[in-house]
């Protein structure tokens, strides 16, 4: 006779089955991870094989040329560095500023809710639409022309929502007790944010910033839309100069019929990846400086 309690209980899965399920799940997770790794490795190998022969100091130090062996990425690299530095500044200031306002100061009402929904929607807008917006507003209406500044502002708009969302997440992860502690000592709300909340949120904000910049550095469509030139035979020296960037240069090389230019494109991709990694290294170093003190 089985006691009543035991009869009502579901029959427990045998330990072997449970362990097997656990193992299966781990294998699935490893498979999922290695898919990404394999794809990345294949991409890198392919690009390295094609491009490493062309890659040299000369390649980095030469302007575009109609002969593939004389062409280089100097103007594109300079343009990318110019545009990315300005984009980083614009997007960081506007994005973190907006996040601080929404998270720390704004009263929750229908207006802030509409702003929130719109920021989230903006993150899903195709990048070429930002290009057209940049063309209309920055290039024509503000009269900036096809300049570094217009390109940087367009890319800043593009990554703004990512930074706002990441920064709000970072600010929200700071316990409210930190704000209360600061306010209870007689600090103003701004002092509490400036000296305690923002530094504590910085690691998360910088992580979002890295992702956002990585997205911006590879963008081609919006910059073509605002008219980044494909052949630029000078290095921009002021923000109002015209420019090209690495992705646009790579795109232009790939679309040329001569196969030699494909090697140039591969070399250009390597340069782009190095730029991306250097940018990430800077951001990660900054993040480590902020999060060196152990967290709560």
């Amino acid at each position, binding site marked *: 006779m089985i006691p009543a309690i035991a009869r009502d209980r579901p029959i427990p899965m045998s330990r072997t089955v449970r362990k097997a399920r656990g193992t299966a799940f781990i294998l699935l997770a490893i498979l999922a991870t290695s898919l990404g790794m394999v794809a990345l490795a294949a991409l890198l190998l392919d690009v390295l094989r094609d491009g490493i022969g062309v890659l040299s100091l000369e390649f980095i130090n030469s302007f575009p040329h109609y002969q593939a062996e004389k062409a280089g990425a100097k103007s594109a690299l300079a343009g990318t560095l110019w545009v990315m530095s300005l984009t980083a500044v614009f997007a960081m200031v506007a994005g973190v500023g907006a996040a601080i306002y929404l998270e720390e100061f704004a009263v929750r009402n229908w207006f802030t809710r509409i702003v929130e929904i719109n920021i989230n929607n903006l993150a899903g807008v195709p990048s070429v639409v930002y290009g057209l917006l940049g063309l209309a507003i920055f290039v024509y209406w503000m009269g900036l022309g096809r300049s570094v500044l217009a390109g940087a502002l367009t890319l800043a708009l593009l990554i703004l929502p990512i930074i706002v969302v990441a920064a709000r997440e970072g600010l929200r992860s700071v316990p409210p*007790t930190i704000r209360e502690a600061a306010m*209870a*000592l007689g*600090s*103003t709300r701004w002092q509490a944010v400036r*000296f305690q909340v923002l530094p504590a949120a910085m690691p998360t904000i910088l992580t979002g910033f890295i992702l956002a910049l990585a997205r911006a550095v590879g963008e081609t469509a919006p910059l073509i839309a605002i008219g980044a030139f494909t052949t630029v035979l000078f290095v921009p020296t002021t923000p109002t100069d015209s420019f090209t960037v690495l992705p646009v240069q790579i795109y232009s090389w790939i679309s040329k019929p001569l196969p030699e230019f494909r090697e140039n494109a591969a070399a250009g991709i390597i340069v782009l990846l190095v730029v991306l990694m250097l940018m990430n290294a800077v951001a990660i170093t900054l993040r480590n400086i902020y999060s060196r003190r152990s*967290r709560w």
Partner: protein
Amino acid sequence: MVTENFLNLPQTTTAEAAVEPARDATPESVIDVRELQAYYGENRALKDISLSLYSRRVSAIIGPSGCGKSTLVRCLNRMHEMSSGGHVKGEVLYQGENIYGAGVDPVELRSRIGMVFQKPNPFPKSIFENVAFGLKVNGISGNTSERVERSLRRAALWDEVKDRLKQSALQLSGGQQQRLCIARALAVEPEVILMDEPCSALDPMATLAVEELIRELSQEVTIIIVTHNMQQAARVSHHTAFLMMDQDKAGYLVEYGPTSEVFTNPKSEHTEAYITGRFS
């Protein structure tokens, strides 16, 4: 009526607490709460609270959970209005001036009425920066390290941290962190310190250290402490306020008086029931 030692209190400390009020015969009131009502949005959390809190005394606020003890102390430095929907009616006079009056800057008020919270909440920065923060935001210049040292000494923490002021405050133990929070509050030299269950997250030894510190500090600072621990109230306070919830879940003041009287000869049967542990 209640017997003398119903809580099995250590006799020495109750005796001390009972003897101490003889320091000056007529205590001077520093905060007068007048018919205070506190709300969260539509919900009233406190109803008709009136009491006077005395200068350089320890006043304990006790009562069952949810009765508005924390809300009451947060009304005293206008932290209550930081909670969503938090607002009050009535008056709180601090040194004769209504802190809810027009033209009172809550930021300035909070630098004169310090606060220590339930859970130790040091900033994720160095020990030194924690104590110096209040000086920085209040624009107190002058010898910062001297002030930091003095505050840490007053909080009985100096000897434990003097060799590692640059280390993160989060590496300290819970009890040390709470004393650091007290030092941080002391650095701006407030006249009153509000403590919202300062020992509830601490172990018994750390609790004793903080209680010792409270007794020490009450020589020069007014301390108002919320506690759910009646023995603690009996050990550290000169006056005790007992709060309860009415049917509308609003807290009201049942009884307020010298701690020795509230605990040995309570006027209200509710107080007696609460302190003898018949409900909590």
